[in-house]
């Protein structure tokens, strides 16, 4: 196993998930523009409370306007980790940064430290990491209620609590698992898991996908923005 100078598994590099979970984290048949896919939810069951299940159905109906991805807003955690964009991990002993190509998403994982006292509402939450043997465990709290898990409208409240586990299984694969808790929405904790693959292209780098700026540029060119 590749290790850093301080003896931890070396997660540095550019990684990407190869699931269809950004469309729907559960098993789903193909639909126009949506490839079929097997879900990333253990047991495929998301344990919604009854009222929450109705909200999920409403979200699905209105997904073209309500989903953060449609607005080019930050996608939150864990969705950023399986969105169809590469991300780069830069690992130092005290601080691990995660940089996604999607809308310059940044995650800061502060090691061996406490969450600040809340309430704080952050799109990406507040990430605090520690090593359990060779697994990086990241505790994430202080979310907004505005991010979803996928385009299918699976959602959470601001009380979301995510515990992620990153385990290097080969030099080029990380097994990613996350336990998801939210007493406002779910009846019990549930888990997702999938592998992350190292981008092996010789010239691989994370580029830019600045979707809202492209939208601004296009609207400005059409004269839809600016003084009359």
């Amino acid at each position, binding site marked *: 196993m590749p290790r850093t100078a301080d003896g931890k598994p070396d997660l*540095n590099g550019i990684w990407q998930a190869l699931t269809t979970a950004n469309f729907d984290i559960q098993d789903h048949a193909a639909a126009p523009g949506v490839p079929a896919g097997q879900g990333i939810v253990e047991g495929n069951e998301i344990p919604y409370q009854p009222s929450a299940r109705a909200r999920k159905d409403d979200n699905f109906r209105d997904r073209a306007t309500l989903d*953060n991805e449609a607005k080019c807003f930050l996608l939150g955690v864990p969705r950023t980790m399986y969105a169809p964009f590469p991300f780069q991990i830069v690992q130092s002993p005290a601080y691990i940064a995660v940089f996604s190509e999607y809308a310059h998403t940044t995650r800061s994982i502060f090691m061996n430290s406490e969450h600040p006292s809340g309430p704080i509402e952050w799109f990406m939450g507040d990430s605090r990491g520690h090593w359990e043997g060779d697994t990086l465990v990241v505790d994430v709290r202080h979310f907004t209620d505005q991010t979803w898990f996928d385009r299918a409208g699976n959602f959470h409240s601001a009380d979301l609590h995510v515990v992620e586990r990153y385990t290097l299984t080969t030099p080029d694969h990380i097994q990613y698992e996350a336990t998801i808790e939210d007493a406002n929405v779910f009846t019990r904790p549930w888990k997702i898991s999938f592998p992350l693959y190292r981008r092996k292209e010789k010239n691989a780098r994370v580029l830019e996908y600045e979707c809202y700026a492209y939208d601004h540029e296009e609207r400005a060119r059409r004269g839809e923005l600016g003084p009359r």
Partner: protein
Amino acid sequence: MATARRGFLSALAAVLLSSALLDAQEGGARPAQVAGCPSKSSEFIVCAKAKAAAFTPPRNPDGTPNMNGAWNPATANGSQNIEDYKGDAFLNPQVSLIVDPPDGRVPYLPQYANTRQDNWDHYIDPIGVCWLAGVPRQVYAPRGIAIVQAPNVFAFVGEFAHEYRVIPTDNSPHIGDSIRLYMGDSRGHWQGDTLVVDTTNLTDLTWLSISGHFHSDALHVTERFTLVNADTILYETTLVDPKAYARPWTMAMPLVRFEKGHEVWEEPCIEADHDLPELVREHKIWQGLMPAR
């Protein structure tokens, strides 16, 4: 730490409406001295280079100087201006960050002599609508940066609008010229204990200051990061752009380590409550230098 924690909306209001002064919230009032040197850029660079030559920096396990941590561009005033400015109701006074040419002015080509003023009068600062700050502005944008280093990688995290830049330091080549990025393509290498960063593939969609300083898509930026002492970096950046400038020019400034425990946190931008048509009611969206103005 609390002063650095203003939400984006306060900065947005200042940038867009130009009605609030940014002063202290960008990390405190401008210091007169940094690392025992005068903070004025033209004097700081000379003094800081002498101190750096006599300083043995702390090192990472791979032998590179250890610059990990959170850093405050303490004399940059949140990128309001980069030239000498007396201050007015909208922008704070500024001491020029430009050390070459000696007059401290951006050496624009003659046809662009009035463009900065025109930008200020008629266009919105691109970071005011959450576009990426670009290079080199990311380094001296509001609220400071964190540096994180790994073998063959040097990266910045900016608090302002969660902007980042990852710089390979492995002698790899730039990406193809047709791929243009707001933050460009940065490649670094170590010259002794100085990190030298070369950035190309830029657009003309970013500015250098709230006051409207600009460049074209031919901009080529060289940056130099040198530890002066354990808590100060000398930052130098040279801009070459034959489509906008008559000659290369250089800024220099200190980056000062934030207090122990300072964390660079998430600051949403476009995600904040943001009524774009209202914001651009009086000012136009900047579409770059090249289109007919």
